[in-house]
C-alpha cells in the first residue's frame, strides 16, 4: 500500500504552521475565495453532502445532511457552535489541529457558516487547552485584520464573527446540548431532544454544532472536490450505510511504543494502526485489549484487533462505535478490574446528575468496582454491573444523553469479553464470597461532586 499523503496534517511540521502567512503559502484560504467567488450556500451544502463527510466528534452524523436541516429562510439569527471541548479519554487530535494549524479550522468554520447562513460562531474550547486558546485567538485576530472575518468578507456581502468561549473542566460540555446550555451561562445539563439544535439551539435559535476535525476537512473538500474525498476510506455498503470517507486523525496512547496522532484513511484496522504506525505494544509485550475510539466505546479484545476502524467496524465487534477513533492500548499485564474501575470512576465523576439512572448507575458502578478491587467482590456483582449497564443510556431509553451509554459500554465489553478474569480475581481475593459491609474506604473513593 503506498503511503498515504496527509491532508489535515500536511503542514503541521512546518515552522510557524499556525500563522496566516504560512497557511497562505501552503494554499490556505483558497477555498473561501472559491466559495465567496460564486458558490451559493446550497451548492456548498451539496458538495459536503456528496463528499460523504461524517462528523468526527463521536456520533458520525453526515455533515452535509446536518447542514441541510437548518432553515433556509429563517428571519432571525442562526449560530454555529464549534465543539472544541475534546475531553473523551484518549483523545487529543483536535488539540493538534488547533495548536498547529488553527487557520485550517477557521477556514472550515467560515465555509460552514456561509453554508448554514450562520452569522456568528462560538468555539467552545475546553479549559485545559491554553495553547489552543492563544493560537486560535491569534488566528482569529489575523483574520479580522485581513478581512477574512468581520464585515463583508473579501468584499462579498457575507459577514461573520467568531468568538472563543472557554469551558470549565466538565466533560459533559462536549455533548452538544450540554455545550449549548453551558454557552448560555447555565449548568451544562443536556437538553431533551427534539427539538434538535438545528431547529432550536443556542439562545433558542437554529444552531449547527460541529467538531473541530470535521470543520478542518471542509476546505479540502471545497478545493479538491467530493470525488477526491471519496477516494479515501471505506465505501458505503448499501443505502443504510453512509460509508466512511476521508482522512482521519487516529490517536494512539496507553501501552504503545510510539504514542501520537496519525493521519490515515478511515478504515485502517486496529492492528495495523498499533503495529505499523504506533510501533507495536510497548516493551515487546503482548496486547490484551484496546479501546477503539475513546473510553466510551468499550473494548476490542486482542483477538478482535483486525477490526477496521471505520464508522461501522467497532460496532460489529460489540463496541459502541468508532467514537473519536482514539485507540488506547492495554498490554497483557493490565488488570481488567483496574481498567474498569478507572472507567467507572471517570463516568461517575462526569455524570451531570440530571437523570437518576445515569447519576445513580455511574456512581454505584464505581462503588461496586472499588469494592471488587479492594478484595470484597462477589461473583453476583458481575451480573449486577451488567444489569446497571443494560439499564442506563439513550439506547434503553432511560437517559437524556449518551454519556450513560458511554459509561455502560466499557462495563459490558470488559465483563462479557473478560469474564473469566473478573471471576478468578473475585475468587482469589474474596474466597469465602462473603457479603460484607461496604468499607468506609470505598465510600471515600466516590467523587466529591466536582465535574
Amino acid at each position, binding site marked *: 500500500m503506498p503511503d498515504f499523503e496527509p491532508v489535515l496534517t500536511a503542514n503541521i511540521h512546518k515552522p510557524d504552521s499556525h500563522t496566516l502567512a504560512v497557511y497562505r503559502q501552503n494554499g490556505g484560504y483558497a477555498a473561501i475565495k472559491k466559495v465567496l467567488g460564486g458558490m451559493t450556500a446550497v451548492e456548498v451544502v451539496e458538495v459536503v453532502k456528496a463528499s460523504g463527510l461524517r462528523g468526527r466528534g463521536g456520533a458520525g452524523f453526515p455533515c452535509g445532511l446536518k447542514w441541510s436541516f437548518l432553515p433556509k429562510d429563517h428571519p432571525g439569527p442562526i449560530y454555529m457552535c464549534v465543539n472544541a471541548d475534546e*475531553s473523551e479519554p484518549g483523545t*487529543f487530535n483536535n488539540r493538534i489541529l488547533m495548536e498547529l494549524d488553527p487557520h485550517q479550522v477557521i477556514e472550515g468554520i467560515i465555509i460552514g457558516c456561509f453554508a448554514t447562513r450562520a452569522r456568528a460562531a462560538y468555539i467552545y474550547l475546553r479549559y485545559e487547552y491554553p495553547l489552543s486558546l492563544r493560537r486560535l485567538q491569534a488566528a482569529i485576530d489575523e483574520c479580522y485584520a485581513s478581512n477574512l472575518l468581520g464585515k463583508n468578507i473579501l468584499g462579498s456581502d457575507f459577514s461573520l464573527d467568531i468568538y472563543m*468561549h472557554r469551558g470549565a473542566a466538565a466533560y459533559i460540555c462536549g455533548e452538544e446540548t450540554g455545550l449549548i446550555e453551558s454557552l448560555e451561562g*447555565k449548568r451544562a445539563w443536556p437538553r431533551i431532544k427534539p427539538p434538535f439544535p438545528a431547529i432550536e439551539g443556542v439562545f433558542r435559535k437554529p444552531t449547527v454544532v460541529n467538531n473541530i476535525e470535521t470543520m478542518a476537512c471542509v476546505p479540502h473538500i471545497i478545493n479538491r472536490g467530493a470525488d477526491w474525498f471519496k477516494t479515501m476510506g471505506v465505501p458505503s455498503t448499501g443505502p443504510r450505510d453512509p460509508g466512511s470517507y476521508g482522512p482521519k486523525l487516529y490517536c494512539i496512547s496507553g501501552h504503545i511504543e510510539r504514542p501520537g496522532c496519525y493521519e490515515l484513511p478511515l478504515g485502517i484496522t486496529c492492528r495495523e494502526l498499533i503495529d505499523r504506525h504506533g510501533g507495536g505494544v510497548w516493551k515487546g509485550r503482548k496486547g490484551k485489549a484496546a479501546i477503539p475510539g475513546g473510553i466510551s466505546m468499550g473494548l476490542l479484545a486482542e483477538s478482535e484487533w483486525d477490526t477496521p476502524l471505520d464508522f461501522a467496524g467497532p460496532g460489529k465487534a460489540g463496541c459502541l462505535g468508532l467514537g473519536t477513533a482514539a485507540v488506547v492500548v492495554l498490554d497483557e499485564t493490565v488488570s481488567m478490574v483496574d481498567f474498569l474501575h478507572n472507567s467507572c470512576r*471517570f463516568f461517575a465523576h462526569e455524570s451531570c446528575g440530571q437523570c437518576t439512572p445515569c447519576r445513580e448507575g455511574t456512581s454505584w458502578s464505581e462503588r461496586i468496582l472499588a469494592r471488587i478491587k479492594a478484595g470484597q467482590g462477589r461473583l453476583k456483582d458481575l451480573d449486577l454491573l451488567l444489569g446497571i449497564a443494560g439499564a442506563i443510556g439513550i439506547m434503553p431509553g432511560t437517559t437524556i444523553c449518551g454519556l450513560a451509554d458511554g459509561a455502560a459500554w466499557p462495563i459490558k465489553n470488559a465483563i462479557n469479553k473478560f469474564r473469566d478474569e473478573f471471576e478468578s480475581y473475585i475468587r482469589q481475593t474474596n474466597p469465602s464470597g462473603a457479603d460484607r459491609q461496604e468499607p468506609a474506604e470505598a465510600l471515600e473513593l466516590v467523587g466529591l461532586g*466536582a*465535574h
Partner: protein
Amino acid sequence: MSTTDAAPVLTPEMRQEICALFPRYPTKQAVTLPALHIVNEQLRCVPMRAIPEIAALLELSPAQVHDTLSFYGFFKHEPCGKVRAWVCRSISCALRGGEDVLAALGEKLHVHPGETTPDGKVTLEFGECLGLCDFAPAMLAGEKVFKNMSVDKVDEVAALLQAQAD
C-alpha cells in the same frame, strides 16, 4: 453581618473586562462563564461575595450565577495556590503510572489532591483526561504542560512547581 459597606470584590478593571464581552452574545447571561473566569484569573477563586456583584452586572439573580458556578467544580470560593496543577488520572495516563505520580507528588508536597501547600504556592489536583495522552502520564500546571512524568521525576517536578509559583 452587613456586607453592604464592605469594599467591592470586583475591581473596575474586572467590571470593564466583563462588560466588554456583552456585544459578543445576545444575552448577558452568556457572559457568566467568561465573567467567572475573569474573576478567577485575578483572585484565584470566586469568593461568595463576588457572586451578587457579577449577578448585578449580568442582570441576573445571584442564585442563577451561583447555580452555574457550583456546577463546575473548577471554581472555588477560597483562593487556590499561585499554581494550580492537575495530574491526569484517566486511562492513558493511569496505564503509564499516572496515579502513582499523583500520589508521589502529593507526598512530596505534603498535600492530598484538592489541597494547597501551606505556603500558598501550589494546589495539587487530579484531572480527568487532559488531552495530553500522547505524553502520558501528563500534568497541566497553570499553562505549563509536564510530559511523560514518572515517580522518579517527582522531586524535580515539585521544585519546578515551586519555582513557577515564585
